[in-house]
Structures are given as structure tokens and as C-alpha cells.
């Protein structure tokens, strides 16, 4: 049983950032703007968050670890919004090709993090180090719940709960609010939305900014549990989040399932040499590593006909075209 708990705990470290970032991509695309800049925004968000943590820690300020993490999350979110505004401006106002401005951000992000990292770091290195003040050995009370406590409330980070909270909030926002309805309309048929008096530009800005918030947070959430320094990369998890978004067919609950499927296989691939049963089978880890992508291909092959991609995603809105 402890193996199962361990696997669930480890899966969280992969799944939660994927979930958060893919939900961010969902808001952008449901509003009609393709956002392949998720990777770059993650890097920006993680960089800002970690720099902030490092600044506090190396200044010797005594602060509650969880509070510090929350502040870092806010920093990452704010940075994400700022970066996403550049993308929004280019793709909404300037009607630029959305793939190009997204690519530009992806290319800028690591270079920016390396350059600024070296300049502001007192040690002159691009790696920004931080100490782990955030790990929860066991959450009081909740950690004592049988099964669930072992899975979710021991060896965890508050980012896990934040991920689930974001999922619920995203679902409610998209399906249960006026805003969500309007956003979806702008992604599917912006002309119709416009004729109903909705400002397509505003809605799209909102969608992209939401994706900036979530991708920024996702970047930080990705780095915190798995390393002790940030080195200007999120190892392609932004692109993986795009795959999760498509695998999840732009729907929150399916994205949840997809994120956990990808995360579980990532965890199994990396951990197979330490897991009973799998250890004895001794399949090369490449096998598990391939699985998510093969499954994505298979699922897409069967569902692409009735794919739920927002119809107007990727097309700049032009009032003059009816």
C-alpha cells in the first residue's frame, strides 16, 4: 500500500503543474487565442517566483514557509500576466500570427532568465538557488485520515491543493458564469458574440491574461518540489501541457484526467527502478516514457473528427469580416 501512496505523491509533482498550465491554455484557446507561449510564460513565472524566494531567504528574513510560497505564487502570477499581455497585444490588437508571438516569447524566456539571473545574482550565476521551506511532512488532522490522508496530505506541498482549487474555480468560471459563456462564444463564433454586444477584444484579453496567471503559477509549482535551484528551464513541460490540453479536449475535467494520466506515467517511468513488481519486470523506462505520447496519438486518431477545438482559435478577430 505504501507503494501506492508513494506513487500518488510523486504523480502530484508532475500532474499538478501540467493541470494548472493546461487549464491556463484552455482559457486562452476557449477565448480564441492559441497560446503556445505557455512554456515561455512558465519560465518567466518560475524565474520571478524563485528570485523572490531567494531574495527573502538570503536576506535572512524569518517568514513562514507557506506564506512565502503564497507570496512567490502571487509574484509568478503577476509576472505571467505581464508576459501574456505582450502575447495578447500582438495577437489581438496587432492581429499578428499567434504562433509567431508565442514562439518569440518561448525563445525570449530562457535567454531573459539566464541574462537577468547572471546580472542580479550576487554570485554571478544563472542558477538561482532556494531552500525548501515549503515541504509538508504531514498536514495536521487531515494527514491522519486513512488512505486519503496518506495519499494527499503527507509528503505534499500546498501547491497540490492550489491545483485542485484552480480546477474547481476554472470549471465554475467556464461553465457557470456569464463570463465563461461569453468567453466560449468569442472562441467559437466571435462575430456572433460581437453582434450580441460582447467586446471580443476584452474577452480575449481576459482569456490570455488568465492563461498568463496560470502558466506563471504552473512554472513555479513545477520547480519547487523537484529541485533546489532554477536554471532557466522548465524542461518542455509547457509543451507537454499543450498536449494535455488537446488530449483533454479543452474541457476542465478531461484535462484533469489527462494531466493525471501523463503525470502517472511520468512518475512510473522515472520511478520504475524503485517500485516493487515493476522493478522485477525491468522494462526499460523508455517504454513508460513513450506511453503518454502513443496514447495521445491513438486518442487523437479516434477523436479528431469530432474534436472539440474552439472553432475560432488561432484566427485574429477582425470586426470588418462578417
Amino acid at each position, binding site marked *: 500500500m*505504501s*507503494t501506492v501512496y*508513494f506513487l500518488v505523491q*510523486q504523480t502530484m*509533482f*508532475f500532474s499538478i503543474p501540467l493541470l494548472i498550465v493546461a487549464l491556463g491554455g484552455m482559457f486562452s484557446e476557449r477565448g480564441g487565442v492559441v497560446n503556445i507561449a505557455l512554456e515561455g510564460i512558465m519560465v518567466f513565472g518560475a524565474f520571478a517566483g524563485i528570485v523572490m524566494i531567494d531574495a527573502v531567504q538570503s536576506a535572512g528574513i524569518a517568514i513562514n514557509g507557506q506564506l512565502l510560497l503564497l507570496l512567490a505564487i502571487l509574484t509568478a502570477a503577476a509576472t505571467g500576466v*505581464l508576459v501574456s*499581455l*505582450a502575447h495578447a*497585444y500582438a495577437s489581438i*490588437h496587432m492581429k499578428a500570427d499567434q504562433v509567431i508571438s508565442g514562439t518569440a516569447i518561448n525563445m525570449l524566456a530562457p535567454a*531573459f532568465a539566464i*541574462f*537577468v539571473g*547572471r*546580472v*542580479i*545574482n*550576487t*554570485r*554571478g*550565476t*544563472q*542558477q538561482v538557488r532556494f531552500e*525548501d521551506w515549503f*515541504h509538508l511532512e504531514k498536514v495536521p488532522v487531515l494527514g491522519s485520515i486513512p488512505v486519503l490522508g496518506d495519499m494527499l496530505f503527507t*509528503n505534499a506541498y500546498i501547491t497540490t491543493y492550489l491545483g485542485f482549487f484552480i480546477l474547481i474555480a476554472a470549471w465554475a468560471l467556464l461553465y457557470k458564469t456569464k463570463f465563461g459563456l461569453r468567453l466560449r462564444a468569442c472562441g467559437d463564433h466571435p462575430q456572433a458574440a460581437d453582434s450580441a454586444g460582447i467586446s471580443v477584444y476584452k474577452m480575449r484579453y481576459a482569456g490570455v491574461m488568465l492563461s498568463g496567471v496560470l502558466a506563471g503559477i504552473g512554472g513555479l509549482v*513545477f520547480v519547487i*518540489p*523537484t*529541485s*533546489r*535551484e532554477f*536554471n532557466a*528551464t522548465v*524542461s518542455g513541460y509547457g509543451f507537454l501541457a499543450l498536449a494535455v490540453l488537446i488530449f483533454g479536449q479543452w474541457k476542465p475535467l478531461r484535462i484533469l484526467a489527462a494531466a493525471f494520466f501523463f503525470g502517472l506515467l*511520468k*512518475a512510473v*517511468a*522515472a*520511478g*520504475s*527502478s*524503485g*517500485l*516493487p513488481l515493476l*522493478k522485477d519486470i525491468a522494462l*526499460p*523506462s*523508455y517504454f513508460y516514457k513513450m506511453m503518454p505520447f502513443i496514447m495521445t496519438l491513438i486518442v487523437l486518431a479516434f477523436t479528431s473528427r469530432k474534436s472539440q477545438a474552439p472553432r475560432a482559435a488561432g484566427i485574429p478577430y477582425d470586426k470588418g469580416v462578417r
Partner: protein
Amino acid sequence: MKKTNLLAILVAALFAACLLAGCASGGDDNPDSGSSGDAFELALITDIGTIDDKSFNQGSWEGLKKYADEFNKTHKYYQPAAKDNTAYLDAIDLAVKGGAKVIVTPGFLFEVPIYLAQDMYPDVKFILLDGSPNDGDWDNGPDFKTGANTVGVTYAEQEAGFLAGYAAVIDGYRNLGFMGGMAVPAVKKFGYGFIQGAEYAGAELGLGAGDIAIRYHYTGDFIATPEIETMSSAWYNDGVEVIFACGGAVGNSVMAAAEKAGMKVIGVDIDQSSESATVITSAMKELAVSVYDCLKDYYAGNFPGGKNITFTAANYGVGLPMSTSKFETFKQSDYDIVFAKLQDGAVDIWGDMRNGADVSVSDIPKSIVIVNEIA
């Protein structure tokens, strides 16, 4: 339209602010510039990492700086603009123009640049750490040439690994892990030595066949990834007590896992005890010692030019940092005994080559240790 402009200005201002903020605080991180004048006698060119990489660059720089401070020599380090031979050569050129008499280059990536530079600047001395100069033509067998103005320094990594493995087993660890970076000769030698050290200690303690287990893996890179963290966590969760993290930033992920699991790590290259409380010891190459020694020889007028020197236990080129190590039962006296044995050559430790053939993990004689190689 007005709104558009405002936004554009905002975005531009944001980036400008970031850049300016960067410049403002960047003044003092310039390389240490020694005492006076414009010429810098001693120069170091950094490898891919930075000067405080807690590894090669830092270790070498400490040796150079120690000598320079003691004997009041001007010194400076240079960071190549990119990770390729041209950029390395440009940096060397810069150092020579900056008045360098001796240039230290840490890392085997400098083998080819030094092969070329030693002929281009015959009046400058080069100290190449962890390699011997060659033309890099591995398809046809490279042309090795160490010029009269160059010394190539290599290390007996297997001895450092041996000491780490020995100490861990004497200290009571039985379930070990080896997390190597790229399977390059240096990393392999560390790993092979680690296995043999564990075996040797097991024999001394009279353990039975299969009493010591080592999981053995190369990550294929020198970077920290969540996958390495998960793999290490899984090992710890499955009973592994200590992992030898042997590959630069790979150690970061292993330490992250060890901190969560409450387990132990063995560091590599330099004393990594300050990086994490989980580091019980480090398999060190005494980079500072070798740089210091070579510089001393140079100023004494007997620079070992044209030679390739291997630093071993015999000349204190490898070792464990006993003062910062966190062992329970393995004592300084135990260390001194085994270290003396290595110095005498009383133990035959296999490296990555033996009798001209490549050695693989399965070739190494062992009975007490069971190695589980993980692809």
C-alpha cells in the same frame, strides 16, 4: 488607438525597467581583478558552468586564487560567450591579450581548444584540468599532443569513488545507489571505484555474498530534472539509504529527494556538504591542490610542460573531506589507513580501461556487492 499606444509604452517600459535594474546591480560581480595594473598574469577560462558552480570552475579558481593571494599575483577569470571551441579560443585570446602568462582551463571540453592554443601562443603556459590535449578526431583515433608549454592534469576518479564506497559501507550502509550523469570516462571511473570500494569494505567486514546492493544508473546529462528526483525518491522509498550523486546538477535533484525522504547523499568533485544537510561526504578531486602545485612549479622555474600528470591519492589529488563528513562510525583513523593503502598501491582498482579494453560494470570482480544496472 490611444489605448494601443499606452499599452505598447507600458510593455516597452517594463522591459526597459528590467534591463536597467539588471545593469544597476551588475557593477560589482566582475571577476576578481587582483592587485593592480591592466595585465593579469594568471587567468582561468571557465567551462560551461560559472565560477561558483560548486564544481570544476570553482575548485580550480580557488587554487589559482590561493596562490595569487599568497604571492601577490594579478589574476582574472574569463567566461566564454558560448560552449564551443571557437568561443573557448576567443576567451583564451582575450586572456593572452590581457597579459596572461599562465592560463588554467578546467574540464575535458578544453582538450581541443588547448591542442590548438598551445601552438598559437608558445610563450603562454597552459594548465588543462581533467584532460589531455588532442585534436578531437575520435573517428580516426585522436592525435594527442601535449606541448612543451602545456600540462595535462587528470585524476584517478576511481580512487575517489573507492574511498566513498568504502566509507559508506564501513559506516553501516548496505543499500546504495549510484546516480551518474553522462557515461563519460570520469563518471564511469567514479562509479566503478564506488562499487569496488563497497566490495573491499564488505570483504573487510566479512559480509556474505549479496549483502550489499547498488543500484546503478546514468541519467545521460548533467542537469537537474523532476525525473531524477522521482527516481531517487523511488529508490529511497524502496530501501536505498545513500545515493552517490555523480554528475554536476544531477545532485540537486538527488538532494531534493533525500531531504524529503530523510536519507543521505554522497557528493562529487568538491566538498558539497554546504549544499544540503543530507550530504554525508564527497568524492573529491583536489582541483585546488593541483592548480596550486602546477603554479608553484611554474614560478619555481620547473613547469612540468609537455607532461600529462595524473593526480591520485599518492599526491593527494583525490580524497574525502573528513572534517565536514557526517559519518557515524567511520573515523579519521579508518580513513587514514585506507588512504595509505591507496597511496602504496596496495589495492588494485579498475578504471574504465584495462589492458587496452573498455571495462563494463559486469567485468568488475565482485561477490559481496550486487549491482543492479538500470537502463
